[in-house]
């Protein structure tokens, strides 16, 4: 094994030198830089060979490639609320690095963190802060953006503004008719998400109605909530700000409109973090995952988040 590794190393070294010499035949400026890079790359290869003495030669060669161009794949599993963000980031990243495949599955925050802890995924997407239990198991919380939760009502509703207290009264069943909130005489149909949903968790916590809500409809996806609210007179629901469309009216809370600006300024109280959890610190991850986080937390990744109406991390 060791013999073979030395042979491979020698071969790669020789190749690098040859390439260096050949480019060296061009103009003198190039010679300098390519010679430098070949030195750099050979030192990288050295460390790789040392590290992978127990591993196979395949991983070694792919790691050696990553010095110039990233190759390989990143798998993300997690929150359905983060679907738009994760897909947009993945597309941009893959455009930049054609050798990389970023695949994302959207099954739920808890399932995502479980997957990253089982090492079936590189990154676990979570639309809530990690629980202490998850952190103890080694999950590290990397906040990549902040999301606002919008409260929406059907298009015929005349109530345009709710206070935190009114919202709590609606969701705990103290107020059951819109006429008590300055609207028409219509019963309130309380729509929400199922137990365990990140959005529900965030909403109930932020409104202060944890475990006290009486839902008339518990639906299992953001889209279903919007569809139900849009088609039911008197309905009220909550969903990620970036998922709300024109079929429903977004209500202002405490007089503050649910806009990206207001969330950034911190005036709008219904907001939550988007987390890309890793198993151990980012520094301990593979080169590829490190490059991913460099991109996501960098200017480009954050501008992608901004186009989706999320708050950027500064």
């Amino acid at each position: 094994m060791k013999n073979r590794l030395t042979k491979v190393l020698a071969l790669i070294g020789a190749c690098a030198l040859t390439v260096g010499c050949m480019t060296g035949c061009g103009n003198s400026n190039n010679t300098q830089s390519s010679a430098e890079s070949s030195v750099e790359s050979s030192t990288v290869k050295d460390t790789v060979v040392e590290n992978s003495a127990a591993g196979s030669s395949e991983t070694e060669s792919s790691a050696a490639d990553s010095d110039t161009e990233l190759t390989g794949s990143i798998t993300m599993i997690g929150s359905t609320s983060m679907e738009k963000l994760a897909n947009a980031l993945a597309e941009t990243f893959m455009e930049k690095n054609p050798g990389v495949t970023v695949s994302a599955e959207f099954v739920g925050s808890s399932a995502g963190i479980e997957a990253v802890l089982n090492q079936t995924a590189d990154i676990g997407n979570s639309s809530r802060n990690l629980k202490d239990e998850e952190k103890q198991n080694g999950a590290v919380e990397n906040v990549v953006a902040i999301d606002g939760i919008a409260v929406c009502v059907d298009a015929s509703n005349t109530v345009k503004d709710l206070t935190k207290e009114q919202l709590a009264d609606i969701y705990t069943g103290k107020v059951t008719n819109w006429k008590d909130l300055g609207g028409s005489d219509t019963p309130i149909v309380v729509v929400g998400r199922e137990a365990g949903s990140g959005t529900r968790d965030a909403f109930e916590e932020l409104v202060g109605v944890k475990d006290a809500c009486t839902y008339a409809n518990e639906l299992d996806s953001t889209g279903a909530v919007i569809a139900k609210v849009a088609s039911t007179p008197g309905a009220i629901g909550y969903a990620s700000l970036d998922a709300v469309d024109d079929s429903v009216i977004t209500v202002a809370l405490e007089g503050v409109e649910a806009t990206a600006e207001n969330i950034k300024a911190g005036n709008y109280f219904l907001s939550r973090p988007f987390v890309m959890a890793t198993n151990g610190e980012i520094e301990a991850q593979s080169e590829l995952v490190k490059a991913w986080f460099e991109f996501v937390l960098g200017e480009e990744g954050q501008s992608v988040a901004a186009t989706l109406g999320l708050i950027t991390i500064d």
Partner: protein
Amino acid sequence: MKNETHASVIGNRKNKAVVETVAQIIFTICATFAILAVASITIYMIVSGTPAIFKVGLKEILFSTQWSPAAKTTEPSFGILWVILTSIIGTTLAILIGVPIGILTAVFLAEVAPKKLAAIVKPAVELLAGIPSVVYGLLGIYLLSPLMYKLELAVFKGSGTHQFTGGANLLSAVIVLAIMILPTVINISETAIKAVPSHIKAASLALGASHIQTIFKTILPAAKSGIVTAVVLGVGRAIGEAMAITLVSGGGVNAPLPFNSVRFLTTAIVSEMGYAQGTHRQVLFTIGLVLFAFIMAINIILNKILKGVKDE
């Protein structure tokens, strides 16, 4: 020549014996696969469904009505009594609505309908069987729910205690389920009715019974066994359905009253599996185990009834 024949006969016998043995082995292997599948599913359901029973307590799960699995401020509770009752009542109502309609449609197709009309209705019914369940659910949301909401508003006008569901309630789910079991009931019942020997019908008519009398007094009793099979399969479809009713039942864990938002055993698993973790997740597997036990029990009981019918 004689030798050759002799040899070939012996060869044939040998070949025959080999073919017999090989065929027997193949059959055994195939049968083992089916048994393995059933056994591994049973074992998996028991292994993954029982930890929560020990953690939470069987009585607490089966006989408590409080379902708040992800509660943080209070002790989480995992009572699924309402969910179990919803599944029982919902399925029973769907069967009570769907089976008579289905059997009468089968009679119509097999006995009463003019041939040309039957040629249109029969393919339509078969097409109904091929529609994916999620489509039934979507139709339920867009057609049934608004109508149900109007009905709900009329029934509970001025009520201070009723929680309005916007048309997503037990009644909607029952109607969708009843429609979904129709094709199964119709197709199998029709086959059973058509399989009744014509001399029985002829004898009944010759004795002076009218067509309708013949249908209800002679043909249907003669086709009883096939019709019971139709009902068994209908029950199976109704109790195991998740996708369609998750869209129209509302999803709240409440007592199974007609206008309440309710949750079935199947939808309870489907709707919370994505985000559940820890004990919550284990309890969802326990719900799966309950559903599994349910379907097993129904199959065994109905098969007994079916055998009883055959023995008559």
